[in-house]
């Protein structure tokens, strides 16, 4: 099981979703991806994208102006 990070800071949605989508395509089932963003919209959009594409959100963190989503590739 690999663990990877994605820096999507400064990007406005849907770009963080697109970058997540492109990254996940290269990962395997069960791998973990941590996405760090500055657009608060990701807190809705990345979980929505995960739900419709069969991935699992393990944790969401919100600190100051940074939003982190940890997901498991489905």
């Amino acid at each position, binding site marked *: 099981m690999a663990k990877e990070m994605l820096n999507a*800071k*400064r990007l406005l*949605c*849907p770009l963080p*979703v697109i970058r997540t989508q492109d990254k996940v395509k290269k990962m395997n089932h069960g791998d973990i991806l941590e996405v760090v963003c500055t657009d608060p919209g990701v807190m*809705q959009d990345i979980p929505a*994208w995960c739900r*419709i594409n069969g991935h699992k959100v393990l944790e969401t963190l919100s600190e100051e*102006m940074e939003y982190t989503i940890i997901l498991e590739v489905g």
Partner: protein
Amino acid sequence: MSKQRKAVALISGGLDSLLAAKTLLEQGIHVEGINFFTGFCVEGHTHAIRKKDKDKPKRNNALWSAEQLGIKLHIIDVIDEYKDVLINPKHGYGANMNPCLDCKIFMVHKAKEWIKENDFDFIITGEVIGQRPMSQRKDTMPIIAEESGADDLLLRPLCAKNLPMTLPEREGWVDREKLYGFSGRTRKPQMALANNFGFEDFAQPAGGCCFLTDKSYSDKLVDLWSARGDKEYDLDDIMLLKVGRHIRPNNNFKVIVAREDGEARFMQGYKKEFLNMNCASHRGPLALIDGKPTEEDLIVAAQLVARYGQGRDAEVVDVTIREKDGNERQVQVQPFIADKIPQEWFV
């Protein structure tokens, strides 16, 4: 057993594409969504930059639509490829810088490529004859099918009965009788169908889903091209046209002044890309300086920044000028008096 047919639906996040996809799902077609991000898409998030819009839902409507439909959504970044559509539209622009017909041809063409790569059978869109003045007319809809290369693989479920039969209908993959014959600008048939399908909360963007249909945004884009002497742009350029007050005192530079905290927060992310300034002696907005200003220009910019801060009525205001590398210095300026700023400076 007959083969499960697969369609890709262009999902904008609006009601029509939602209904078109649902219509085909009801016929047992496997549908997945595709959404193209041009950089000019109006999203809840773009509005959410501004604090005053914080009550607007911060959601991506295309993702929301896909979730309502229970389908996968593929969001494709076409920012670079889209430049040619915007800069050289074969069919010209609409009321502003919106190349709607070329845009639709481009997107359907991309969808055609996608179905070939992913072994899908046909494409559906939420287009309705007469719904939009440029891209959704009886005479332009065949142009989209033809010039995109999709031809009779392009099915418009909401107005199919007003159009020649497509391959999915001729082959019996789709029952034409269960498609619709909507036309014109009225939204009543769509609202009734939404009601039938049980959709209650859906996006209804008044000016479409593209910033290029907006006059103010288009004016800023034209100004950017005109000042630079060419029509190139990058993502940062077009994102920054969405925020702030844009003031161009001279062709060689432009001042982008944050209008409120949300914009200032967003613009903070550009401090390493742009020379920037803000008031030091009073509370005031962040401003980014685009272009190649002279020292004299920077004083003008500082006076503008001072005018939009709390020191606007002060005799003098200290303004911090920050270089891209973080080096900073202060200048003392007299704030511009509001009505002394030439109107033609406002982009």
